[in-house]
């Protein structure tokens, strides 16, 4: 179940914890995608990256 998460007395919403976990995963993914040359096949890289990060966070919260 979702619950409060405390670090050094600061109570963080679970979403924040998921976002923190998603960030390094996203950076790694972006690095790999860039090396594979995927960004040559996208229209607006900024929009693509933003949508990709949202997908990642949503999947993490919904299924992990």
């Amino acid at each position, binding site marked *: 179940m979702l619950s409060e*998460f405390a670090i050094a007395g600061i109570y963080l919403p679970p979403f924040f914890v998921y976002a923190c976990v998603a960030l390094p995963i996203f950076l790694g993914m972006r690095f790999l995608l860039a090396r594979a040359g995927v960004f040559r096949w996208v229209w607006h890289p900024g929009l693509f990256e933003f949508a990709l990060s949202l997908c990642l966070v949503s999947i993490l919260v919904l299924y992990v």
Partner: protein
Amino acid sequence: MVARFLPLKSVVRAGVTLIVVIVAGVLLNALWDAYVLSPWTRDGRVSAQIVRIAPEVSGTVLNVSVSDNQLVKKGDVLYRIDPAHFQLLLAQAEAQLAAANASLRQKTEDASRRRRMEGFVSAEDIQRATQDMSIAQAQQRSAQVAVAMAKLDMEHTVLHAPVDGYITRLRLNKGDYAVAGEPNIALIDANSFWITGYFEETKLHGIHPGAAAQIRLMGIEQMLPGRVVSIGRGITDANQQVDAQGLPSVEPSFSWVRLAQRIPVRIAFEQLPQNLVLAAGMTGSIEVETSASKSPPPGRLISLLHQWM
């Protein structure tokens, strides 16, 4: 420069991006349902029934037999009020009863004597003697009640715990003056702990009495099973308060930003670990199981982190 002359590549580029954007939109919608609309809350508070113990008689406290935060059993002595005054009152009531008894005996003899001398005394005299006897009977009954009340007051100088529970914030000492009807000891009923979940009104539709719930108290890894008992049917509406002239003080509010009100939901603990220290006022997160499609996220990552840290 090359891309401009390859429309197929442009279509693929736009298509890939749009597909990812659409997938993100669908997932965000699911996230919203699970995270925002499903019945879970971080705003849970442990509550307990508190017995405010007040003496039935006033007097100086003779001795306090309990200490702060002590667990007491039902019937244990909490404190004693100096009984000297009430002993005197009892003696007085007993003396009045003795007088009433003697008076009744005398009136009864008078009445029977007059009845035996029916030809010699007037009927009025006999009637008056009989009535005097009835009055003496009533006075005797009144004196008996006064003795019983004095005895009851004597018993009330010793205060007992009405339930098993914990003494809280004990600020009563030998020599304090205890005033009848004024609570001076708070006793937390040891068997009455429950948790109140303050759920946003938007989440209430998924909550039904009898539904299973999971509780994680702050600082306790273990999840505790619970069950929804009931849903609170009223919270304060600040706009209903009236001013000195009897007019409602309606607050102006922003049209854009609205906060969902929180409704208290009472959740009983199904079973509690033996060594768990529960205190009223503790906070925790609560998740209510729901049959609706909008079930809360699993939160396995949070559980894992709780175990690690």
